[in-house]
């Protein structure tokens, strides 16, 4: 078998098997190097896979050589490819440029475990994105969740521990709900393979258990995706996790859960289950709107910038869900493009936060007041990423916002509501991003040392890489938009 055919497996196996090796490595430097190498390799593989998908259509890989539905198969279509790009890219950038920030407050004796856990998160998320088997999703969801608990608990503040515990409880409940749902579906169809489920679920005479299963799966994944009002674990987890971890997870982890949600809803349920399509629109759309409003509102008054950005993430998840809840080509395109662009913007913002945190003690607004002069590069990138989050034209954020509004315009009266909400929250975004930028540039510093203290070079470099990516994909949005459109077409092709 040629290497190209093995790529899907390698995508997951490389980080998955580097992790135990990293456990054995002593010394932070070595383990960091190994972890970075693995995730860079994963990123390269992801790029290769994406190009293959774009040219040759979806890939399929039979684990252990057993055909579906008897064995587990990997199914990588445009959507999965996009997810793989996000996950591996986020990991590669944050690891490569984040060494200084990570070493800041973690004793060297444990770092190798930390990096191993990091790789496991990476492998878990990639595995979820790649697999075509409902139970396998559960396994990899647990892999990534457990490992990310470790990463978050590594935060220096003691509140990281309680935040992690809350996350652990809610995450496990979510996973178990998902497990119940899968169990019910399996009970009625006798298969675990997505594609196979789709075929067999149609013949199920009584759809009650299926409907309940849909409910459980949706709720479970909503917990993992921090959909309002199940988001309560997210703000603390993001706030007290190590900054690099926040950058990594905020860029991709919740989106992967949404990805599974989309997959299950469109591939398995909506095609066969009239009631479910309605359930999706009726329950998720309002939640999405509420999430957008509440997230933005809280972000406007929050004083700790990490928590501020975390709440803005809650709002952004609302956007993604809103686009999906239109269940239209435009809507799904917008939703997928949002995943990509939000990952870029939020990733850059949290990287900037990490960069600032390498020089400034606190992360409240009054702590970072007036550091624009001390860390010009970091702050410029921060402003740029902020513009992208707000959706200033010329940045990636604008593209997705445009697509979302455009999709909303097709929706008639509900669309109008959606537009009003989105516009309101964009204004809110202007406000809360501006609070940061203005504070950074025009705020009066607490202590009057205006010595030039730029963050470590690799960090700034990575930060600018992502920030410029925001601009690039704002002016040449071909890649994400093409992927998004293909993905939307795939998903919709499963509707009746």
């Amino acid at each position: 078998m040629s290497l190209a055919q093995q790529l899907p497996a390698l995508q997951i196996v490389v980080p998955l098997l580097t992790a135990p090796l990293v456990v054995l490595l002593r010394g932070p430097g070595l383990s960091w190097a190994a972890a970075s190498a693995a995730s860079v390799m994963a990123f390269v593989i992801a790029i290769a896979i994406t190009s293959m998908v774009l040219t040759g259509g979806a890939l399929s890989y039979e684990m252990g050589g057993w055909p579906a539905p008897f064995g587990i198969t990997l199914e990588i279509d445009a959507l999965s490819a996009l997810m793989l790009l996000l996950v591996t890219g986020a990991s590669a950038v944050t690891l490569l440029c984040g060494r200084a920030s990570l070493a800041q407050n973690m004793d060297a004796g444990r770092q190798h475990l930390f990096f191993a856990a990091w790789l496991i998160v990476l492998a878990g998320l990639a595995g979820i994105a790649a697999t075509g088997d409902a139970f396998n999703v559960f396994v990899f969801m647990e892999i990534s969740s457990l490992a990310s608990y470790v990463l978050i608990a590594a935060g220096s503040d003691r509140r990281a521990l309680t935040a992690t515990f809350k996350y652990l409880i809610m995450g496990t409940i979510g996973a178990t709900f998902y497990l119940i749902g899968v169990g019910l579906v399996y009970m009625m169809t006798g298969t675990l393979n997505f594609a196979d489920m789709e075929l067999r679920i149609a013949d199920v005479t009584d759809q009650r258990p299926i409907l309940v299963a849909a409910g459980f799966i949706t709720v479970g994944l909503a917990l993992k995706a921090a959909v309002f009002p199940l988001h309560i674990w997210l703000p603390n987890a993001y706030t007290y996790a190590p900054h690099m971890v926040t950058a990594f997870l905020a860029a991709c982890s919740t989106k992967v859960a949404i990805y599974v949600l989309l997959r299950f809803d469109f591939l398995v349920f909506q095609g066969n289950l009239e009631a479910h399509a309605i359930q999706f629109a009726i329950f998720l759309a309002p939640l999405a709107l509420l999430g957008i409003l509440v997230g933005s509102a809280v972000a406007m008054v929050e004083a700790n910038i990490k928590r501020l950005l975390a709440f803005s993430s809650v709002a952004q998840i609302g956007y993604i869900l809103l686009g999906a809840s239109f269940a239209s080509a435009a809507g799904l395109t917008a939703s997928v493009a949002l995943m990509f662009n939000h990952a870029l913007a939020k990733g850059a913002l949290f990287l900037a936060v990490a960069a600032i945190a390498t020089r400034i003690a606190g992360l409240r607004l009054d702590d970072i007041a007036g550091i624009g002069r001390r860390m010009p590069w970091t702050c410029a990138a921060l402003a740029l990423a902020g513009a992208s989050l707000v959706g200033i034209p010329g940045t990636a954020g604008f593209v997705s916002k445009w697509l979302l509004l455009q999709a909303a315009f097709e929706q008639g009266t509900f669309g109008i509501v959606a537009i009003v909400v989105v516009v309101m929250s964009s204004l809110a975004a202007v406000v809360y991003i501006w609070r940061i930028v203005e504070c950074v540039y025009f705020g009066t510093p607490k202590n009057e040392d205006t010595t030039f203290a730029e963050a470590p070079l690799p960090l700034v470099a990575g930060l600018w890489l992502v920030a410029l990516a925001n601009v690039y994909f704002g002016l040449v949005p071909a890649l994400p938009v093409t992927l998004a459109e293909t993905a939307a077409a795939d998903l919709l092709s499963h509707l009746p």
Partner: protein
Amino acid sequence: MTVVFGLFLLTLLVITAIAIVREENLFTSVMLTGIFSLLMASNFFILDAADVALTEAAIGAGISTVLLLGALALTPRNERKYRGGRWMALVVVTLTTLVVVYATFEKPRLGDPEAPVHQHVAPWYLEKTPELIDIPNVVTAVLGSYRAYDTLGEVIVVLTAGIGVLFLLGLPGAVGDRKPEDLATGRTYLSHHLVPQVVGQLLIPFILLFALYVQFHGEYGPGGGFQAGAIFAAAIILYALIEGEREALNVISPRTLMWMMSGGALLYGGVGIVTMLMGGNFLEYGVLTSNPIVGQQMGIILIELGVGITVAGVLLAIYHAFAARGR
């Protein structure tokens, strides 16, 4: 007859569960959890799930109880009394339950051979296994070959738990700044309990033997890496209880534990890599030898070994992490 017995056990399960939740002395709760797991195990057994029963008994009743006790030794024994006001919770919970019951009315009756579960994939496993893999225990076949990828993931989950606990609590001699020498030497809990020590030393060899039996007999009867690993760990933990952490850590050094944790997973993954190099898919054991059936059996034995090693290593490491944290 079995049905009635089943009803009896299930009812006991419910009662135990309620007791666990209501009891305010956590120590008692933990003990009850052990009982709960045993009941669950026997329940699984009457439902013809021998492997699951064995696992639940070894892991649920055995290891997790030990871990809970280990944690309890470091935290308060009693749950704080507190006033009520949990209507919200009650409502949510009741709603969930009602939804489940609502769904269950349509479910196939217990043991209905016509249920779709028994139609599609399962029969294929039962038919093809003899000719494709040719080992009696179909569960092992599915676990080790058809869904080996899941099992690999499972091993990684265990490994992650190990990594996490060691990261949070440290392991004298491997993670953190403490060395085994810092630990209190000599007999610990049972210093003045002669009888248990004698009996324990008498039993440990048998337990290890049994672990190996479960490990390598997994293809033919119930058992396999997970159960074996758990039992093996149990034996060492017993030794630690009798002789103390320090001695136990001298028997299997912390570094060895780390090697076991990773080594098992690496062995498992290595098999997959080898199959890839030999031109097959990941974990496609058939290519290992000229005869695919032999190859399959070989692969399964190897990966089960990997599973066993990792599970044993991780469970031991976790136990030591908890036990050493105290003193």
